């Protein structure tokens, strides 16, 4: 039995390894990892909805997009957010993501299942339409080219320094979301995922809980967008389009919904496969597609579900019997 403390230790070791190994690899790896970390924040924010609350959203790119566009517009049009005020932009990006989610949530949260999926998809596409059409602000199809990263004591043009900045945001987001999902509020989301009606009868205003979760996910989506804008140096409607939402969703499912870590692994695999395979073979998209299909068919719990699967397969029912036996043995004992 793997205890919670051991799991946390494993994640910490993995993070430490990442912080040491990546900067000592080539510049390509540094850039790739920085990008993957931005998307990992987005995927984790979606995991709060999909994995913990049971709401499959297809519009998460909208919050990512508004965060990215906000950063780009402020930097290029107003020269804002290129010094210490970068931190203000981070805050504003999260607030804008949260505000947009608060508005969209009014329409989306009343629905569940596939209807929720359709509404979030439609709302997400509205944001894409805005990015695509509002030429004077967003630059339309061309997007916005940003010149230079913020400078505040740190030299962020150095890719390794910038990697550490994104890494720090990533670790902080992960820690905050980890505490969130284990807090009374986070556990209530799991209850809603399992059986919403019962939660209402137990005294929870389930609409409000889902609405708050939606807003929090939006805020982290906005943060991911702000970081992405500076990572990429270019923001375009491609960041807001449906494909980006789908990518985030697939990252969560691939890694394992409801685990947070799974979203990070999913993000790493998608970016890794996409970047490396595309340099090797022209049919790399088929390989990515095959990975998705196989995961959904044979690993509905994602890659994070593999250990449990192996345990189940090796025990093949034995483990369940033994728990029942011990339970009975304990029950028969006079206490």
């Amino acid at each position, binding site marked *: 039995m793997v205890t919670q403390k051991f799991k946390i230790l494993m994640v910490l070791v993995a993070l430490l390894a990442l912080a040491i190994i990546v900067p000592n690899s080539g510049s390509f790896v540094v850039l790739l990892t920085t990008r993957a970390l931005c998307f990992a924040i987005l995927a984790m924010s979606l995991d709060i909805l999909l994995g913990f609350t049971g709401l499959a959203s297809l519009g998460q790119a909208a919050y990512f997009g508004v965060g990215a566009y906000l950063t780009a517009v402020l930097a290029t049009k107003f020269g804002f957010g290129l010094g210490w005020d970068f931190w203000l932009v981070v805050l504003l990006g999260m607030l804008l993501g949260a505000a947009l989610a608060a508005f969209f949530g009014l329409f989306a949260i009343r629905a569940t299942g596939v209807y929720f999926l359709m509404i979030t998809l439609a709302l997400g596409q509205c944001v894409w339409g805005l990015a695509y059409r509002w030429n004077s602000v967003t630059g339309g199809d061309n997007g916005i080219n940003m010149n230079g990263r913020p400078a505040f004591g740190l030299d962020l043009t150095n890719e390794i320094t910038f990697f550490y900045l994104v890494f720090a945001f990533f670790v902080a987001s992960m820690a905050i979301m980890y505490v969130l999902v284990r*807090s*009374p509020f986070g*556990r209530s989301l799991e209850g809603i995922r*399992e059986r919403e009606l019962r939660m209402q009868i*137990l005294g929870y205003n389930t609409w409000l809980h889902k609405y708050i979760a939606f807003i*929090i996910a939006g805020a982290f989506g906005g943060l991911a967008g702000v970081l992405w804008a500076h990572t990429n140096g270019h923001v375009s409607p491609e960041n807001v389009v449906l494909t980006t939402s789908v990518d985030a969703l697939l990252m969560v499912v691939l890694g394992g919904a409801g685990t947070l870590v799974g979203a990070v692994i999913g993000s790493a695999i998608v970016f890794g496969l996409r970047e490396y395979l595309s340099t090797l073979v022209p049919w790399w998209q088929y390989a990515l597609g095959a990975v998705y299909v196989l995961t959904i068919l044979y690993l509905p719990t994602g890659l994070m579900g593999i250990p449990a699967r192996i345990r189940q397969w090796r025990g093949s029912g034995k483990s369940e019997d033994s728990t029942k036996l011990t*339970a009975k043995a304990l029950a028969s004992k006079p206490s």
Partner: protein
Amino acid sequence: MSTDTQTSGGATPVLELKGLCKSFGGLHATRDVSLRIMAGDRKAIIGPNGAGKTTLFNLITGIYPATSGNILLFGQDVTTWPSHRRTALGMARTFQVTSLFPKLTVLDNVLLAIKGLRPSKFVMWRVLSSYRDVYEKAHQLLEQANFLDRKDTEVRNLSHGEQRQLEIILGLASDPKILLLDEPAAGLSSGESIEMTKFLMGLDPKLAILLIEHDMDVVFDVADEISVLHFGEVLETGSPEQIHSSARVQEIYLGTD
């Protein structure tokens, strides 16, 4: 039946229904049901399948809106309130079809139930396991029901009888003043049924219970008063003996009309 709003003793009923009706299109599932439950009352509702018993519970707990009539909890008109606000007044219910959180452990199920009425359910900056008082309360509840040894078992791995029992534990977790039990003995063996009856009779005598049940042994042991529901209407109300010997009740159950 309930023409006067205040009772003779001046005490407010825990739950009062006044001319409650519910229609689904042309189907009248509940017709003019009036009922009054005082603190500590043990009341049962019986009736053939499709009589509208569970619908009545869904109206009382706010899952369905009432078509007409009023629902009063502790003297307050809650007819249009959502479920969670009614629960906050001191009401709890169990479900006929087991309605637990299958992928969570027994302990987590109980923790969720306890947290339901505490303002700290919105706290997100502190992990749940740091709330000592909630854990102690959960342990106490599980100990009372002899469930402590299975607290880390996932609920989907429990037997049906154990799940039925856990249903009631979740109902009791919020310290309700009135408990609505929807067929607590559904699908239990006769031995388990007797266990369940004992458990129900051992509950706090100040707790009001409204019980739906098909198992007449359970009903006659637990309830002081029985109402018979037929096609959504209260046909007869009386003591267990009266109901037992009523010709009309026998008629509807045996179907000789």
